[in-house]
């Protein structure tokens, strides 16, 4: 476990394999909620929180439940159930504690349950930081950090996209490509520019 490892995880999760623009996880929410900056930011922060927490929870489940009992084939079911339960729980807590925060974040939380980015991070962590059914040294910290970085990557793409789309509202675009098609074409150009980060090495 050293600093280079963390830097590599950061660069690859945020830039090279950006969760939206390169791995295509969480595209539905990316296209649907990126029309204005404020909701986009709220959604991104909620996603970042959930990916981080999901990384922690699924790591413990995989390491201390699934591996010791030889149940690794139940990975998908157990992860998605735990994530769904966790998101529901957070929603209830926020609604109880702070109604203003609930109005800001609450409506996005149910959407996150079926956001591929969250389950994607959990599966990626397991694929990357467990070798032959054993956790590699420092795998917990790597998983946690990757959870945060994927959230950061999501936030970056969301903010850029919503900024562009706010400006596009003022432009005259052909009727046929309005909304969805145009969003994808913009995302394609953004993804092309992110390609420039390929080949970064430490």
């Amino acid at each position, binding site marked *: 476990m050293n600093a280079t490892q963390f830097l590599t995880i950061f660069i690859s999760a945020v830039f090279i394999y950006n969760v939206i623009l390169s791995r295509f996880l969480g595209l539905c929410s990316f296209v649907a909620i990126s029309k204005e900056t404020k909701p986009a930011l709220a959604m991104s922060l909620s996603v970042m929180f959930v990916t981080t927490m999901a990384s922690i929870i699924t790591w413990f489940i995989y390491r201390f439940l699934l591996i010791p009992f030889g149940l690794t*084939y139940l990975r998908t079911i157990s992860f998605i159930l735990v994530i769904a339960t966790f998101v529901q729980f957070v929603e209830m807590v926020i609604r109880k504690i702070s109604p203003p925060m609930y109005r800001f974040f609450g409506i996005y939380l149910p959407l996150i349950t079926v956001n591929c980015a969250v389950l994607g991070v959990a599966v990626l962590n397991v694929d990357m930081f467990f070798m032959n059914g054993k956790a590699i040294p420092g795998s917990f910290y790597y998983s946690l950090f990757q959870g945060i970085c994927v959230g950061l990557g999501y936030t970056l793409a969301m903010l850029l996209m919503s900024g562009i789309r706010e400006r596009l509202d003022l432009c005259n675009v052909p009727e046929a490509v309005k909304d969805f098609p145009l969003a994808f074409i913009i995302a394609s150009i953004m993804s092309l520019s992110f390609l420039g980060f390929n080949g970064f090495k430490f």
Partner: protein
Amino acid sequence: MKKFFSEFLRGIIKENPTFVLVLGLCPTLAVSVSVINGIGMGIAATFVLLGSNIIIAMLKNIIPDRVRIPCYIVVIATFVTINEMVMKAYSPALNRALGIYVPLIVVNCIVLGRAEAYASKNSVVNSLFDGLGMGVGFTLALILISAIREFLGAGKLLGHTVIKGFQPAFVLGMPSGALLVIGLLLGFFNVLKSKKE
């Protein structure tokens, strides 16, 4: 019989999950690098859709309304796990190529969307045909996208060189090419739709 057939056809053209409902795009874009991957993903998703639609239509009167989404997810996840195991056993190469997108079928909006919008309200046989139609529609969309990308991006179709001396544009095989192709196709279908009306 005619009614079942129309249930089946609806998923292919009028309510095509990819181009009309714009659902489940994550796997569509990620695996459409080659036609073989596209077909594999399409069959896997069709299997999950079919299984979950049938089981959910059977259980619709037993599942309490308030906890229906977690129940649906458990049913879907079960079929995804079966799918994963079968694929690992019989086609490890495809399993490697599709990577994390196989377990991610569980959060594919098409599957949960059909469970919520159709299977929870209709009979078992209707749901079966609906699942089959949606699955085939999804597979056809995947084949279309992956054929465009494989032909223009690698100069091949199903791994065979089609035109000798054709200079492929590698960018179409990359993530940005996937987004471009789907954007242009959606725009193209919008034009067709507005022409029809």
